[in-house]
């Protein structure tokens, strides 16, 4: 604040104006003072000092202003360069004429003053003075002569009788004053024609020097210029005594000059003195006038300089603000408004600038809004793309990958981060298994269709043979041209598998229907033949018939169970879901295979081994059930079938095992927002044959002699009906494990009427491949 106030005082208009006006007044007074002896003449020196100090102050102020300007110039303050340029121009325009006028004025002044003095006048005055002196000398000589005569006459007069003599002599010689002094200067007698009205009763006494000269016998005669009544002649002579050894006396004669002489003499004296003074003061006069003129010129130049600084600042101020405004706009500040200080062209410019920034600000806010909307749109699209199960990749005109979504990587089985900004060919080179994929894209793009579809099978890694469905579209570009293309692809492997499974189911259903129908008549007919003809036949043939019919009935039974299994597999999904506790279900199923009754709820149970000729040892079954397992919606009957199938599979697999054991594990798993119930059945048997791992869950795939090959297929189907997943794998140290994951829906928490699991009718094929 203080600094700003100080700056205002130092570079403001008012102080400099006031100072300039004061200085001009002071210089005017100084100029007047140089020529008169009045009050101004008395304060001449003060005025001079005041002017010098004032001009110094002005100089300091201007230097300060220049310093600030230069500082601004160096620090590249906006407008300082223009200000400096204008300043230089103004200075050149103002100072140069002043300097020229000054130089000519000085020259003219000096010549003018010199012209006042003329040799003839000077000689005339000298001559006049000489003339005056000569005429006065004549009077002086006459008076000296008269005085000497008077002195001789007075020689005989004694001190007591001298007065009448003096009066007489004064009258006779017509002198103004006659005084006789003793040798020591004491007045003996005096005679004066001047009355008391003149105010000088005491006679004028000559100086000691004059008296000393007289005592030495000399005479003194000269004009007395010190008199109060104009010029007068003073003559002093010794008056010798007639008596030898007597002291001399001194006679002084004062003769006032005739008024005509006195006036003329005074006039000559005054004129001469004044002229001489003037001549003598010619140098100082020139100096004084030059000084005044120089100060005036300096003041004028300084004021011009200051006015130049001020004007330059004033002119540049709006331009500077305008420049600062444009810079602010360049830096993105569109709210910058410049106050309109004038109505001239610059004012119009400022108004235009303000209007421009206003419009830019409006456009910018609109653009920001659009950008925000675009951003939102982009985020919206990105969210959709990210959560899209289909893979999406977009390429530019040069076939470089621009964008892709999260699903693209897992579907293609590559790290998409590395593929960004890479070409389609790079994808094929780096990941050879994608060659059919990239070839399809390239050929489709080359064909030039706006939209295209294709199906590609990635065969590179045969166990994971996958089929992708590709859909491509050209992207709109600038000026109506196409800017690139986007490829959307889905892994339809599971869909195809599901379609295949559905086809199998249909076949099975039809076969079961077609086969099951004649089975009962065949069985009944065989039983009827046996019943009717067994007794009628001879003994030896009876055995044959019995064996034959028995075989027919047995095989028909076997066929029936086979057909039932087919029917089960092919039966349409009819899940009747209700809230169940998996742990209870597990315990219920396990109880059926228990060797002996024991306490319900024990974690380790002995199960019956595999039935048949090669009945296996009792199996040790260990239950590891998660007590916190949530209840969930499921068809208890169908899940019971799953458990049965898995348990029977495990039991059959352990037939040759000396120490067979089964672990049944239930767990609650939470992955993200999804909650699962996980069920694992692990045995220590030989595990699944490796060559069957890929097709474990397909129908008619079995390693067992008696198996229908539909057990695991049915299990998988039921699991899928519950929107779950199933996986099977062999353990590194022997044995196999089958893991089922079933989703826990929110509705499961409330017990309610049997309902259909959402999406249960649509078979989902998310089974872990390759088990």
């Amino acid at each position: 604040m203080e600094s700003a106030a100080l700056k205002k005082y130092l570079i403001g208009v008012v102080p400099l104006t006031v100072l300039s006006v004061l200085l001009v007044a002071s210089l005017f007074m100084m100029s007047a003072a140089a020529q008169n002896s009045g009050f101004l003449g008395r304060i001449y020196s003060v005025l001079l000092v005041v002017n010098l100090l004032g001009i110094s102050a002005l100089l300091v102020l201007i230097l300060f202003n220049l310093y600030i300007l230069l500082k601004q110039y160096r620090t590249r303050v906006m407008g300082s360069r223009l200000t400096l340029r204008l300043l230089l121009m103004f200075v050149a325009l103002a100072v140069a004429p002043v300097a020229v006028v000054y130089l000519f004025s000085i020259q003219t002044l000096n010549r003018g003053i010199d012209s006042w003095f003329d040799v003839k006048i000077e000689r005339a005055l000298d001559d006049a003075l000489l003339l005056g002196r000569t005429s006065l000398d004549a009077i002086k000589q006459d008076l000296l002569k008269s005085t000497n005569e008077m002195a001789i006459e007075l020689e005989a007069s004694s001190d007591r009788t001298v007065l009448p003599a003096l009066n007489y002599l004064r009258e006779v010689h017509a002198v103004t004053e006659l005084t006789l002094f003793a040798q020591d200067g004491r007045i003996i007698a005096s005679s004066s024609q001047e009355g008391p009205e003149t105010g000088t009763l005491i006679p004028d006494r000559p100086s000691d020097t004059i008296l000393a000269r007289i005592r030495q016998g000399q005479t003194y005669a000269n004009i007395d210029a010190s008199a109060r009544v104009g010029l007068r002649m003073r003559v002093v002579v010794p008056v010798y005594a007639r008596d030898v050894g007597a002291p001399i006396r001194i006679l002084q004669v004062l003769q006032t000059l005739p008024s005509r002489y006195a006036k003329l003499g005074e006039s000559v004296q005054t004129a001469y003195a004044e002229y001489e003074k003037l001549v003598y003061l010619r140098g100082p006069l020139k100096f004084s006038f030059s000084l005044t003129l120089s100060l005036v010129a300096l003041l004028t130049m300084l004021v011009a300089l200051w006015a130049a600084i001020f004007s330059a600042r004033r002119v540049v101020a709006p331009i500077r603000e305008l420049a600062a405004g444009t810079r602010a706009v360049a830096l993105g500040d569109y709210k910058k408004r410049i106050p309109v200080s004038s109505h001239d062209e610059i004012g119009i410019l400022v108004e235009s600038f303000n209007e421009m920034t206003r419009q830019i600000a409006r456009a910018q806010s609109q653009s920001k809004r659009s950008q925000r909307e675009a951003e939102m749109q982009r985020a919206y699209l990105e969210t959709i793309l990210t959560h899209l199960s289909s893979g999406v990749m977009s390429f530019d005109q040069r076939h470089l990958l621009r964008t892709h979504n999260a699903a693209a990587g897992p579907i293609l089985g590559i790290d998409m981060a590395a593929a960004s900004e890479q070409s389609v060919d790079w994808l094929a080179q780096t990941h050879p298994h994608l060659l059919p994929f990239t070839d399809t894209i390239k050929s489709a793009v080359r064909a030039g269709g706006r939209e295209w579809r294709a199906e590609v099978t990635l065969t590179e890694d045969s166990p994971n043979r996958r089929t992708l469905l590709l859909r491509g579209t050209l992207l709109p570009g600038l000026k109506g041209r196409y800017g690139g293309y986007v490829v959307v692809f889905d892994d339809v492997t599971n869909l195809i598998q599901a379609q295949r499974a559905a086809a199998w189911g249909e076949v099975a259903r039809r076969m079961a229907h077609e086969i099951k129908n004649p089975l009962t008549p065949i069985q009944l007919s065989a039983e009827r033949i046996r019943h009717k003809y067994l007794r009628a036949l001879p003994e030896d043939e009876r055995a044959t018939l019995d064996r034959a019919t028995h075989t027919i009935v047995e095989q028909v039974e076997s066929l029936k169970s086979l057909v039932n299994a087919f029917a089960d597999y092919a039966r349409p999904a009819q899940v009747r879901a209700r809230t169940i506790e998996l742990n209870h279900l597990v315990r219920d199923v396990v109880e059926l295979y228990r060797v002996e009754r024991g306490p319900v709820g024990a974690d380790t149970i002995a199960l019956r081994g595999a039935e048949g000729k090669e009945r296996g040892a009792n199996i040790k079954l260990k239950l590891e059930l998660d007590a916190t397992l949530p209840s969930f919606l499921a068809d208890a009957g169908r899940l019971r079938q799953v458990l049965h199938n898995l348990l029977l599979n495990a039991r059959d697999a352990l037939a040759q095992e000396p120490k067979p054991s089964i672990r049944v594990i239930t767990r609650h798993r939470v992955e993200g927002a999804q909650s699962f119930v996980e069920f694992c059945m692990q045995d220590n048997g030989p595990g699944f044959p490796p060559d069957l791992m890929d097709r474990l869950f397909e129908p008619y795939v079995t390693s067992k002699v008696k198996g229908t090959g539909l057990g695991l297929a049915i299990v998988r189907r039921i699991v899928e009906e519950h929107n779950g997943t199933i996986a099977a794998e062999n353990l590194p140290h022997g044995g196999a494990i089958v893991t089922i994951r079933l989703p826990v829906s929110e509705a499961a928490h409330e017990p309610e009427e049997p309902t259909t699991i959402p999406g249960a009718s649509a078979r989902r094929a998310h089974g872990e491949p390759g088990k």
Partner: protein
Amino acid sequence: MPACISVSNIAALRIRRSALWVLATSALPLLCAPAVLAGFAVGTIQPRIVERVLQVNGNLDLTLTPKVEEAIGKGIPVQLVIDLRLFRRRPLIWDERIETWGLRRELSYHALSGQYLVGSVSAVPTDRESFTSLNEALAELGAIDGVALSIDEPLVANADLRLDVRVRLDIEALPSLLRPVAYTSSDWNLNSEWTTWKVQR
């Protein structure tokens, strides 16, 4: 010679003139030539207190530079001021100033008579004396004979008094045109130093 006490507004004048001197001498030191022999000096001063009157006798050694002589010869009157300051000495602390006087005398040249006129500056011109030579005039100018100066303030009995004296040329009394030259030229710098004299009782 009759003496006139010119106790005018001395204090104010002195301050102003001192300031001017300081400014002139400090601002333009380069213009001042080395000190010349010519100049004023205080010769002998014999101050004596008689009741409340200070009687001063003595003489001043006044020598003019050719420049000043020339100016006088050209009819420019010069004034010199004899400054007198009466102090009471005090032990340990500074001396107390009791009174200040300034005796102003003028020297001029009368061309018609070729005489130098010496007198005190006053309204009455009769106090002037004329001298045919400059030396006589200067001797008269420097003579201080029985100058009686009255003291306004009562004096402490047996006070130890001192009188400081100096003589200076009054440049402000010169024609205004000559003043800048006089201030900046050593030819016109004739002032004496202050001298201190014990006051007798």
